[in-house]
């Protein structure tokens, strides 16, 4: 039995080697480049570079926009998830299907389509002018980026929330009602606390991709609005300053870790799926 156990452990060797080579070493290289200058000597300049006005602006803008998008996603998803979990099974699977379907369309194309919709002479504005309403001017503004983020990441908030809410035992809610709780109280004392794990995994799945995106901002924000993701991307693909790019990535990773820690603190139930 003992040798069998050892053999089983050995089965994982390809994966462990893969992990070491393609996850750990690459991360180590980001740290190496981030902490050295072009000549290879140790420096903290690349990390300190985050305080340059252009970089810090990109970071704060990214933090702000992704925070806002996450909030909007929660506000939109919560009622939706509640409606969904109250539906009949047949309609339910149909609605879930409706949510998942768009995710199979290339996300670049979908985001691009918003360009067409939002443009000054785009579809939405044509309709608005036709109805004699004032035109929207949100393309190439931060609002367009928020819209793109909400659009792209909404399903990632709806699905975990829905999974979580639909698992809540009906009897618990009925018991609360029997004990005299009104709808508001049932929501704040029963449903909301029990859906925390769903909110947490939703936040992780929306906030981090939104924080680090460079595609949405590039497509909908025009070339003038730079998020931290755009700055890092340009350091690598255009400026070829890998050291600076890596340094900024380290800063970005620190923010990701902070956001994971914060969400884990709120997830006191210990049911977190992460880490």
């Amino acid at each position, binding site marked *: 039995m003992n040798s069998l156990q050892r053999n089983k452990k050995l089965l994982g060797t390809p994966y462990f080697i893969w992990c070491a080579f393609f996850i750990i070493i*690459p991360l180590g290289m980001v740290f190496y480049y981030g902490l050295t200058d072009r000549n290879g000597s140790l420096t903290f300049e690349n990390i300190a570079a985050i305080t340059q006005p252009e970089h810090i602006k990109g970071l704060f803008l990214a933090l702000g926009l992704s925070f806002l998008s996450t909030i909007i996603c929660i506000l939109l998803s919560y009622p939706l998830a509640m409606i969904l979990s109250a539906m009949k099974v047949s309609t339910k699977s149909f609605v879930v299907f409706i949510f*998942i379907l*768009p*995710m199979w369309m*290339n996300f670049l194309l979908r985001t691009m*389509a918003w360009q067409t919709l939002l443009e000054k002479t785009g579809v939405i504005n044509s309709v608005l002018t036709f109805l004699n309403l004032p035109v929207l001017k949100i393309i190439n503004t931060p609002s367009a980026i928020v819209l793109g983020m909400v659009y792209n990441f909404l399903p990632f908030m709806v699905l975990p929330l829905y999974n979580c809410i639909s698992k809540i035992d009906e009897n618990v809610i009925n018991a609360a009602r029997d004990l005299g709780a009104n709808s508001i109280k049932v929501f704040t004392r029963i449903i909301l606390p029990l859906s925390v794990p769903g909110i947490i995994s939703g936040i992780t799945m929306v906030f981090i991709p939104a924080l680090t995106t460079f595609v949405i901002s590039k497509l909908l924000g025009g070339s003038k609005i730079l998020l931290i993701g755009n700055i890092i991307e340009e350091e690598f693909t255009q400026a070829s300053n890998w050291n600076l790019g890596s340094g900024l990535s380290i800063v970005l990773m620190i923010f990701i870790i902070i956001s994971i820690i914060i969400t884990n603190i709120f997830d006191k139930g210990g049911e977190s799926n992460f880490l």
Partner: protein
Amino acid sequence: MFLIAVFLYAPIITLIVLSFNKSKTRAKWGGFTLKWYGELFNNDAIMGALFNTLLIALIASVVSTLIGTIACISIMNLRKKTRSLVMGVTNIPMLNAEIVTGISLMLLFISFNFRFGLGTILLSHITFCIPYVILSVMPRMQQLDPHTYEAALDLGATPVYGYIKVVLPEIMPGVASGFLMAFTMSIDDFIITHFTKGAGVDTLSTKIYTEVKKGIKPEMYALSTIIFLTVLVLLLLVNYKPVDKPKTAAPKQAA
């Protein structure tokens, strides 16, 4: 509810409408045409990118399903401390920003003198697909009753035979949903491919990205309409069978 559905589908309808647009620019409607659908099949660049995308997604999902499933067997048998360490490392590509994963792999390939191309894209895709496989196989593994496997061994099955006959059927739903997740993640990936592809090699995503700057060719809209309808039909077919749908459907969701 209805409004959100409109919000989700507005861009898709736009794309479908554009694929029938006679005029080449996005801005105006030049009448109905089917010619982009015909030209699509003569456009070598797009067809090549489509082929690359499918090839990479297929190989990456098969390889990552194999490595991931086998790794699960071994992870289950690790001591608790080592196990949580391995799971922690497994979580890195899922939690970390894609852009960081992308550049870290790019730095790796550069320093080890890999030739950028399909190979590097494939290696990166396998890397970020394995965690999804492990996370969907693992819960199945944990629900497994170890005694059935031991019983098989007592009855004279060799370990490998025992795994194939006893364990594999039990964990199959997890393996299948892991495979599907890996496949969709790979097809839809842009960011990591963007950093690890070489010049001249394109997947659909990177092709679209370069075209955005120059103006997207209408053939691309035609292709995405075809893909969308294919997926729609496939999903409708699958929907009639009892499949563990929410799991396969929420790719980013940790199981």
